[in-house]
């Protein structure tokens, strides 16, 4: 997904869930910041690098693909962009290594999705934004895994766009600078690399930005599905995502007693269904303008464009002990908590692709220093009752 959904659509979902204009802005800003908060960004702020929620293209090219490097990559991409659907998925007659990768395939309505929303309960609005990014991506990025893997994420020439007047073969190219040509069905994707752990085989790189376009309907052969064709209906998936965001935020606001997988706020969104579906179906690379217009029609307020520098000075100028109370400080805490939770769940399932996790309650603090912030936050929350 792109800024059109993570920023503007998330604002709309938050407002429909009952948040005020200002609260909705905080949530959608945090949801979009997940796509910007790289190590490079954090190092400029002198913030904990472990809070990185994404990796820039060149950071990825420079990333080590030794076990430690792969753990780092998997922690970032599986935690924030490709949340695994089922860490205990069955797959017979295969090696453990294969099964572990298979289990990281992203999808909506999994246990981790429920845990992600529950993790944000009673926490900052920034935590709500982070959770909404993760939930939305479970719909867009399903069938791909947030770890480099040829055997899971590869695609081949069998790729067709489904249009109202029939099917059209999709052509892929590898020019990162050239924009996708939706008229000619020419899209950019990552290069084929035969190495299992090549960064080119991370996530949906081999399928280009197709999963990120709300209008796109296509069919293809995923590497892991035993030659079974998958039809991906993005307009339908994105509508589900939108209604699930509203449902999740109603839970986070206390309007619902529990967040359950497979439940949606159909009734809340129903009055706007036609407008939302129209935006999702429109054949365009960026639907930001449409979503912004819809947002304004809902709240009567203009949603400012996303500016990644907006809260930097507040963070930089804050005293050391006050940094966690700033906008970015709260975002960083939310990101660390999400990464910590997903890594722990992977580790507990016997899957080492995200690396080691040490349970603080059982073994004390043994691990990366950046996560001490979570201990402090936890103590603070306990003291406040």
């Amino acid at each position, binding site marked *: 997904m792109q800024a059109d959904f993570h920023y503007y659509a998330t604002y709309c979902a938050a407002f429909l869930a009952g948040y005020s204009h200002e609260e909705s802005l905080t949530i959608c800003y945090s949801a979009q910041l997940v796509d910007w908060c790289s190590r*490079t960004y954090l*190092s400029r702020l002198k913030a904990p690098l472990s809070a990185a929620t994404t990796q820039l293209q060149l950071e990825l090219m420079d990333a080590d693909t030794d076990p430690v490097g792969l753990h780092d990559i998997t922690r970032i991409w599986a935690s924030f962009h490709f949340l695994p659907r089922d860490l205990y998925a069955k797959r017979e007659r295969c*090696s453990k290594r294969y099964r572990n990768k298979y289990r990281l395939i992203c999808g909506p309505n999994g246990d981790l999705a429920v845990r992600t929303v529950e993790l944000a309960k009673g926490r900052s609005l920034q935590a709500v934004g982070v959770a909404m990014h993760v939930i939305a991506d479970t719909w867009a990025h399903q069938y791909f895994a947030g770890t480099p893997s040829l055997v899971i994420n590869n695609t081949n020439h069998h790729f067709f766009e489904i249009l109202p007047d029939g099917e059209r073969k999709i052509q892929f190219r590898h020019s990162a600078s050239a924009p996708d040509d939706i008229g000619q069905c020419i899209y950019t994707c990552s290069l084929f690399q035969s190495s299992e752990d090549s960064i080119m085989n991370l996530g949906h790189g081999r399928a280009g930005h197709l999963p990120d376009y709300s209008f796109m309907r296509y069919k293809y052969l995923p*590497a892991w599905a035993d030659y079974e064709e998958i039809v991906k209906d993005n307009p339908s998936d994105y509508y589900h995502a939108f209604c699930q965001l509203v449902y999740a935020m109603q839970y986070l606001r206390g309007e619902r007693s529990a967040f359950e997988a497979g439940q949606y706020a159909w009734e809340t969104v129903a009055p706007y269904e036609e407008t939302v579906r129209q935006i999702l179906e429109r054949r365009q690379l960026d639907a930001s303008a449409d979503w912004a217009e819809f947002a304004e029609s809902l709240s009567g307020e203009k949603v400012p464009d996303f500016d990644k520098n907006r809260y930097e000075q507040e963070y930089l100028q804050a005293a050391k002990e006050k940094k966690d109370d700033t906008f970015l400080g709260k975002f960083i805490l939310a990101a660390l908590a999400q990464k910590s*939770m997903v890594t722990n769940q992977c580790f507990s399932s016997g899957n080492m692709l995200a690396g*080691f996790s*040490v349970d603080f309650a059982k073994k004390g603090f043994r*691990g*990366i220093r950046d996560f001490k912030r979570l201990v402090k936050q936890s103590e603070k929350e306990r003291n406040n009752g």
Partner: protein
Amino acid sequence: MGKIGRIRNVLIGILMILLSLVMLVLEPEIGFLIAAVILSVALLVTGIRLLFYYFTMARHMVGGKIQLYVGLIVLDFGIFTMTLTHVPHIYLILYMLGTHAFGGVINILRALEARRNAASSWKLKFSQGVVNLLVAVLCLFSLESTRLLVILYCMGLLYSAIVRIISAFRKTAIVYIQ
């Protein structure tokens, strides 16, 4: 990284350091022969690894048979190289040129990106890139000098060994707080 992984990394790092020192001490021609043997062993290992990869992973993948064919070809090439007493210098030179030049360009691009984002790490990255490019240029001028080629190869081995040992001591576990 687990304890075994750390110990393995340290041991491999020490072995690499010892090997590079031995190669530096020996006659250039013998050193070069060792480098050539290392290259052919690397091909053999790669071939076996690819076959192993096919049988444990890629056989479940759409179009995975290509891994089987590539594995067989590389393994065959490794066995063939093993039978040669002298590998033409140009193979080793091209390998070193390619590795260092590519690494250098990536480092410099990363440094420029970091600089655009005003990150402080850009200077270190930039200098790494320049050093890598310099090594590539040196390789280009060492086509006739076996001695220099061996020294450059050993430098590469030493660098990899040190990075491997350092990475073995990094803290890598994420802390989970309920």
